[in-house]
């Protein structure tokens, strides 16, 4: 028994020292700024933390469908509403919850738009644990940062200086077109079948809803047009989900008049993600919807939001250059 306790004590001390070391190394490995060169990944989505405090009206959260389809500068130009795309490639619900939690430390959006493709992305047990570990001990998240570190970075200061801001507010401009094979396969053939979500994603959905409720945020579910990612079974699943949560659900795949996607022109990867032409249609509808809610102030002309005008100018420049 004495020997067992001795070994147990040693094991506890070993683990404690390891945890302290990992904590200290986490401080060292955390990027100093939110620039890509400093080890920050998904710098455009993470640039949401560079935005002025309480300046974002709408957070749009999801995977690549979001940053391909929602253009915050356009919403600003048309409606004076500030929106930001917190979206990364293959983003799952665990990351979305993390994005929402961390963004709410600095922002008080009135609406959170969740793109629905992520609800059907499976999250493995390992992904889930790794996500938690990364939040508790950032070394698990930023461990590859060693490649871009300099000697000056070897400090215990774990404050990230959010110096990089994205003029596109999380939107990724793609101007090229790659049409699906003609005739394209209709993804929205009506059916009564329902595609179920995994238990884990249901659990994350509940957490997101609870968080929104506690912060008095309106949650809206939106499916962006996609021939490859969306279908009627998933639509039915989201209808049920929206009913259960008591939130609004907009499926743009079923709004051919309001969001008139031309599949021969409006996507850049054969019907999966919208290009700029498709995105402007999606954004136009979303902007009108948001304004129609009647809960947003028009910030245009407000000197506190001058940076949004500057961003719009920069975005238009990029647009002009690419659309030449």
């Amino acid at each position, binding site marked *: 028994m004495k020997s067992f306790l001795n070994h147990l004590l040693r094991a506890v001390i070993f683990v404690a020292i390891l945890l302290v070391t990992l904590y200290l190394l986490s401080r060292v490995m955390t990027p100093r700024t939110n620039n890509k060169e400093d080890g920050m*990944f998904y710098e455009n989505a993470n640039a949401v933390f560079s935005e002025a405090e309480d300046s974002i009206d709408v957070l749009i959260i999801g995977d690549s469908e979001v940053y391909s389809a929602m253009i915050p500068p356009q919403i600003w130009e048309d409606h004076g509403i500030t929106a930001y795309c917190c979206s990364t490639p293959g983003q799952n619900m665990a990351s979305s919850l993390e994005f929402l939690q961390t963004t709410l430390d600095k922002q008080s959006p009135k609406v959170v738009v969740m793109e629905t493709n992520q609800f059907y992305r499976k999250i493995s*047990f390992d992904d889930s644990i790794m996500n938690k570990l990364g939040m508790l001990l950032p070394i698990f998240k930023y461990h590859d940062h*060693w490649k871009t570190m300099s000697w000056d970075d070897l400090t215990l200061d774990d404050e990230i200086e959010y110096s990089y801001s994205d003029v596109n507010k999380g939107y990724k401009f793609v101007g090229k077109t790659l049409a699906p094979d003609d005739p394209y396969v209709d993804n929205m053939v009506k059916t009564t079948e329902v595609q179920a979500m995994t*238990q884990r994603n249901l659990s994350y959905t509940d957490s997101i809803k609870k968080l929104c409720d506690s912060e008095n945020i309106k949650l809206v579910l939106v499916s962006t047009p996609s021939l490859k990612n969306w279908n009627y079974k998933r639509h039915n699943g989201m209808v049920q989900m929206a009913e259960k949560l008591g939130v609004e659900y907009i499926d743009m795949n079923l709004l051919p008049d309001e969001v008139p996607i031309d599949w021969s022109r409006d996507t850049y990867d054969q019907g999966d993600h919208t290009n700029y032409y498709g995105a402007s249609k999606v954004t136009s509808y979303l902007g009108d919807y948001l304004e129609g809610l009647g809960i947003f102030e028009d910030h245009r002309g407000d000197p506190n939001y001058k940076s949004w005008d500057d961003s719009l100018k920069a975005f238009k420049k990029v647009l002009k250059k690419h659309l030449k």
Partner: protein
Amino acid sequence: MTLESLLLAEKGKSLTNFFSLSYMIVVLPFVVFVYGILPKKWKRYFLLLASFGFVWLVSGGMLIYLMLTIFSVHYFGIWLDRLQTELKGKAGGLPKEERKELKALYQKRKRGVVTLAAVLHIGGLLVLKYSGFFTVNVNALLSKLGVDITLTIPKYVLPIGISFFTLQAISYIVDVYHGLIKADDNVVRLGLFISFFPQIVEGPICRYSQTAEQLWNVQPIRYKNLSFGAQRILYGTMKKYIIADRLNLYVKNVFDMKLDYNGGAVAFAAICYTVQLYMDFSGSMDAVCGTAEIFGITMPENFKRPFFSRTISEFWTRWHITLGTWFRDYVLYPVTSSKRMKKITSSARKKIGNHYGPLVAGSIALFCVWSCNGLWHGSAWSYIFFGMYHFVLILSGNLIGPIVQKVNTKLHINPNSVVYRGLQIFRTIILVIIGELFFRAKGLKAGLKLFKKMITDFALPTIQDMGIDGYDIVLVILTLGIILFVSIMNEKGISVREVLAKKPAALRWAILYALILFIVIFGAYGYGYKPVAPMYAKF
């Protein structure tokens, strides 16, 4: 976060990777903890339950296949045993001639039983694993012959570990048949031997005499075992996460032929793949043996520094050892010792001498072994080619061996000199890498295309478009240096773990911390990396 995905069948697929968090921080600690607190008499039953639970988590209802295998070989074993007992009972007191006749009769019966068992188990494996490949080729043949018939290509889901536990089951039956072991009347012990969870995914392919008794005579969890086992798992994790999974990015790019890589890039990818495969498989074996060690069980080793081999024959005695010895004992020996082969050998001896004479039968047996070895890895022509490639290399070695010896003597070359040995090792490594290029390529055609590219379009590869950068390469080389150091120590018969265990605690802890942090910081996981499934689990 819920444990839902772990608690439902087939949702624990990531458990096939012994380096997954679900295995390392949930399943393994849970099993070790429960095993540790249970009274001794329950431990063995719990291990069997844990093994079935593991298979069920990974492949759900396919567990039934494993259970059927256990019950089947248990029955066949007892059948063989009964025949043996029956013979003894009947033979007692019989005249010599009659006894001989009776023995022959029972030998025939026993052979019938063992054949039936082999047909059932190997047949099951053949149907599940190869019927698709067989049908595709029959269809191609029919089409070439102008016959307008297309057979439906069957698709079966393979139970996890079928290629491994079927071979264990067969070895048990054959060993009982040969009288090397006694048939086990205890189905729990036999079940534990066949299904022990660490070995089920990628082996090693154990023999009944190696692990059955150890598993039955369970040990308590001892500090030394726990510590040594954990250290070995950590060492395997380093191999997998820092080398194998990091190289995967580049290897995948080249072998998927995403870009028109030059011959140098292909050659570099073949080297990287060989390293990746070794690190992945031997790393997994470290995790398997480390896990078993925690429970006080010594598993047979699957690797013995294969890249120190001087010939291809030697390489295969050091690489995937338990598969090699299985083929040696259950294919090579039975073929060479068959009456027909013995006849061929004796007549060949007379005609072509004592060296080349036995080689005739030996080569036929070798051909059988390498056909099986190639096919065991998968149902594709590229695997058959891989088997034939090694068959030809070993056969060539056997044929030119005496000539090389004569030349060495004539030229006064010392075959044991460092330079000669070094050149032999270098040659063996090159030959292995070429073989692995075909093994990894997506089909035989792709393999030939890549090989041609390597020969005809050779240029030094550039770092661009590789999927890995200079830092990755330096890191891999550094880690390989550590592994080389440990391998040299092991080759000299020095156990690094035993040496370290005698050092002061501060030094031991410092080394352990360094290893853990090395993996945490430099491991290929998280952002930018996709988890790579264990490479041998698919075989």
